[in-house]
């Protein structure tokens, strides 16, 4: 449990700026130390190979990456902080522009870069300088000239209107207290006919108080998760059509391992979140 002074406040009640600050501090620490999974306790970590040390490959495979994905990106980008594999359902094609919300050390961006090729672009936005710096180091290691990283906030995207074909994200939106603004801004930057392909945790049962009020649980991709119903409403309100949120039942297996002293799989499941912007201009 965290000893943060804001313990006693649930995720919904906490000031959004204070929440973002907690999130930034946590992920700055992870970027600097190369440690930590997207959970409060996580698995044992060490070294530069990413989240789960010598077990990171199989851990990434549990999230939905295949061995080729993992082998195709130089070490250091896969911190094991995701909860799915957006590439697997994002249907990215050569020449497209892809935006990754909360790009971290860049792993999903480098996979996307392979999909869109030299004529495409991938832009990663993250609010943590330490993550962006790490991602930039990884650009050199991967020789990915079509990938760019920007320090920015996903509720205030520094991306022009209707310039993006696909918005991807991996286990990040749950961390943002103002999710409606994320979806509104994603809608704005998408070209007509563009789509979102997001992997994220969704809430399946009410959190017990000790989870709901624990800032560590919030920044560890647990307490900030919304229900499928709420997410559908938000995407709908943003203007999206063909909204489809599909829970991945097999994910409860790795989510159950996130904490040693409780089974988070009782409250959370990883889901694929898909939605499309109409081809007709408003």
């Amino acid at each position, binding site marked *: 449990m965290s000893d943060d002074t804001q313990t006693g406040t649930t995720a919904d009640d906490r000031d959004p*700026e204070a929440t*973002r600050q907690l999130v930034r501090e946590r992920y700055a620490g992870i970027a600097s130390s190369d440690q930590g999974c997207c959970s409060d306790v996580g698995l044992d970590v060490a070294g530069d190979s990413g989240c789960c040390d010598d077990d990171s490959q199989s851990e990434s495979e549990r999230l939905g990456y295949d061995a080729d994905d993992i082998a195709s990106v130089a070490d250091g980008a896969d911190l094991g902080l995701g909860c799915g594999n957006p590439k697997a359902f994002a249907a990215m094609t050569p020449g497209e*522009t892809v935006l990754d919300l909360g790009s971290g050390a860049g792993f999903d961006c480098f996979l996307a870069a392979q999909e869109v090729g030299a004529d495409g*672009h991938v*832009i990663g936005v993250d*609010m943590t*300088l330490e993550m*962006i*710096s790490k991602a*930039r180091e990884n650009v050199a290691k991967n020789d990915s000239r079509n990938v*760019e*990283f*920007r*320090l*920015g*906030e996903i509720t*205030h*995207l*520094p*991306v*022009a*209107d209707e*310039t*993006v074909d696909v918005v991807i994200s991996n286990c990040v939106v749950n961390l943002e207290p103002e999710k409606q603004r994320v979806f509104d801004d994603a809608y*704005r930057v998408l070209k007509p006919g563009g789509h979102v392909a997001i992997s994220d945790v969704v809430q399946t049962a009410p959190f017990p108080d000790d989870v709901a009020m624990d800032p560590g649980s919030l920044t560890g991709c647990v307490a900030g998760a919304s229900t499928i119903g709420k997410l559908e409403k938000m995407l709908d309100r943003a203007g999206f059509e063909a909204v489809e949120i599909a829970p991945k039942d097999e994910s409860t297996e790795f989510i159950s391992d996130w904490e040693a002293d409780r089974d988070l799989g009782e409250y959370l499941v990883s889901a694929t979140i898909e939605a499309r912007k109409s081809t007709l201009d408003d």
Partner: protein
Amino acid sequence: MKESLMDILCDPLDKSELELEVDERDGDEILEGRLIGTVTGEVYPIEDGIPNLLPPDMRD
């Protein structure tokens, strides 16, 4: 950041265009400089090749 991707960038505050001022570059890659909101006048630094486009109240 690449100068060729300027078109995709915008001011995070009001989504208006940004103007680029370059102090140091390496070909298309801008290493040091700043982006200035053409409407807001807000200055977003580019340091070590990374444009800092966080809203001003989010910067450390």
